[in-house]
């Protein structure tokens, strides 16, 4: 009787002492939704999820990946049905649309003394809305021109240099379009990147879409003219994702130049059988305006595990994680100190990578978009083929897209 009472007292005492400690180390599994394309990509993200468990053994991160296009279709549906993951991946271009789903992070940053200045300022701005930070960024990057160095050398052309103009670009593309291959690949929703590089304004001062302004139409003429007049780019239909089609044709050596960002190096590096080079986008009459975008991770406002999620996103945007992503070629880190790993490791064999990136970053411009940018991009993909085949003039196509985008 006495021993039982003593044992019971000891157990209670032990539980009382162990109580607070146990509550802190309560194992928790949090979910992380992210876009992922191929196996290399998904393996990279899984590595980051494992890094969270290494740093915080009680936290297990369950990764849920979706292909890029489908991610933006699924996100509002998951939110409406209350099934958002704890960690939500967000891109700077879509932040104006979806910031209401995320938890504001300013209080946590201040409370923990988190060093937000280690990140590139432009992408912190991209991850914020109305001055409030909603996500920690993992990458930032300008769109650049990837080119097939072997094809350039075969054609005896000088390699593209930072500061090259649209005319030089067109000359190279024409010289490279032969024997069934093309010099360039036009992706319809790459219009805005191309237009910005040339200095065109497709958004007016009130932040509304203005595709029929003089400079916007001139840029559209140039962009579509690559297909219809110079015939240096293949026709793309509206069905299959044109971005994937053009990327596939570039990787197989059919197209010599394409526009993409530093995040795609991981996919290209392993599949291409030729030497690649990087150059900044060609400029128009004035200076280059290289738009950048980036992505990061936020905590969903409806999450039940916000503290664990906050610890996790600090790890997956931390220095080791971004060093890993940089060396794999998946991201140009948003942390300034880790950016060198992308140059030195991932882009080591790529001609002109450092110069192209530094030139683009020093000529960076804000990517102007509207609140319904997803819908606008869909309209470009749907209607540009009409202009590419000559059924409509670029002006008519831009007017159609303008009126349809406004009616939504």
């Amino acid at each position, binding site marked *: 009787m006495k021993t039982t009472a003593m044992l019971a007292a000891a157990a209670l005492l032990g539980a009382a002492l162990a109580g607070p400690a146990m509550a802190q180390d309560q194992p928790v599994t949090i979910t992380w939704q992210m876009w992922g394309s191929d196996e290399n990509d998904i393996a990279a993200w899984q590595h980051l999820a494992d890094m969270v468990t290494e740093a915080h053994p009680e936290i297990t991160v369950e990764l849920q990946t979706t292909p890029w296009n489908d991610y933006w279709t699924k996100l*509002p549906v998951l939110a*409406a049905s209350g099934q958002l993951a704890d960690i939500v991946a967000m891109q700077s271009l879509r932040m104006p649309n*979806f910031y209401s789903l995320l938890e504001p992070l300013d209080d946590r940053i201040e409370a923990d003394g988190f060093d937000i200045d280690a990140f590139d300022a432009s992408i912190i701005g991209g991850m914020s809305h109305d001055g409030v930070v909603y996500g920690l960024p993992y990458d930032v990057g300008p769109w650049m021109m990837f080119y097939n160095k072997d094809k350039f050398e075969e054609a005896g052309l000088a390699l593209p240099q930072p500061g090259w103009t649209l005319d030089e670009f067109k000359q190279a593309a024409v010289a490279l379009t032969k024997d069934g291959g093309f010099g360039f690949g036009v992706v319809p929703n790459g219009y805005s990147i191309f237009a910005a590089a040339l200095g065109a304004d497709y958004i007016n001062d009130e932040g509304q879409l203005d595709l029929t302004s003089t400079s916007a139409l001139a840029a559209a003429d140039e962009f579509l003219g690559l297909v219809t007049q110079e015939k240096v780019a293949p026709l793309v*239909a509206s069905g299959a994702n044109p971005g994937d089609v053009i990327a596939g044709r570039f990787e197989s050596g059919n197209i010599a130049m394409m526009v993409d960002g530093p995040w795609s190096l991981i996919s290209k590096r392993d599949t291409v059988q030729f030497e690649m080079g990087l150059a900044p986008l060609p400029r128009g009459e004035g200076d280059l305006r290289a738009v950048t975008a980036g992505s990061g991770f936020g905590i969903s406002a409806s999450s039940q595990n916000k503290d664990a999620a906050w610890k996790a996103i600090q790890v997956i945007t931390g220095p080791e994680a971004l060093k890993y992503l940089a060396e794999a070629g998946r991201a140009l880190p948003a942390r300034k100190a880790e950016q060198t790993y992308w140059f030195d490791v991932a882009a080591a064999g790529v001609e002109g990578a450092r110069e192209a990136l530094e030139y683009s970053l020093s000529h960076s411009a804000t990517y102007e978009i509207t609140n319904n940018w997803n819908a606008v991009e*869909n309209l470009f993909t*749907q*209607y540009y083929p009409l202009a590419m085949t000559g059924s409509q003039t670029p002006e008519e196509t831009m007017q159609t897209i303008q009126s349809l985008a406004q009616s939504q």
Partner: protein
Amino acid sequence: MTETVSTPQATMAAPPRRRNRMGAQEARMAFIFLLPSLLGFIAFMLFPIVASLAISFTNWQLISAPSFIGFANYQRLFTLDPAFFTVLGNTLFFTAEYLVLNIVVSLGLAVWISSLKRGHRWFRVIFFLPTFTPSIAASVVWLLIFTPGGFMDTVFQTLSLQVPNLLLDPKLAMQAVIIVTLWANVGYNMVLFNAALDLVPQSYLEAAKIDGANAWDRFWKIRLPLISPTVFFGTVMTAITSLQVFDQIYVVTRGGPGSATATLGFAIYQNGFGNYQMGYASALAWVMFLIIMALTALQFWLQRKWVHYDS
């Protein structure tokens, strides 16, 4: 003898309560057996349909709370939306052309197969196989065939034929979708019609042959009227599903080029999940429902003249 006579009399003389109780018991048993299906219907069909009607009167955009806006969505649909009448026209054009081609081809195949002396079972299986394939998978393969620079372009190039690429021409893009849908669905109606043709009594056909009717007459005047109930069923079902066409459009053309292949089903998806406008998409869905109901009612009215039932 007397027992069998007296028992019905006995039951008839018994108070009506007994029959009602038995009837009530049977009804209760039937209800219990139907309950799983009924629950499924209520949860997965009735509730979403009613919810969709409610959503069509709001401006729900998925990430924000819905707010009631009355008939504004329907007004916008009929007056403000520049795309609605194009979309409606595309849908009706697709349905008309596809329905006619489907019935003609499947009927023709059914007649041909029923006239074969040997191997008709094999041909039935071969033509029915495409209906097994998920429509998305079939559409992806056809996309690879139709894509600019793809299989079809290469074949025509080697044969030196100047055939325009179907996916790039706004006037021909719908034909690509029709080809895919025909390939995938002809087998279903063909098997249906073939089974019905096999049920036509041989004695009628032999009698007609003796009377001097040729094959054409035998088909039009005997076989077709006798299988007309089946043809009617096939037509109604094909019309309903073809008005809802979505899979092939989503994969092969995404509504393009321009809005040449945007149909009602695709417009609902695009508005709801592409532009996040659930309220407007729900209104579109209800308009589509009413159109399908009207077309089906029309077909039922036409059956009085065209369909011959045995009784």
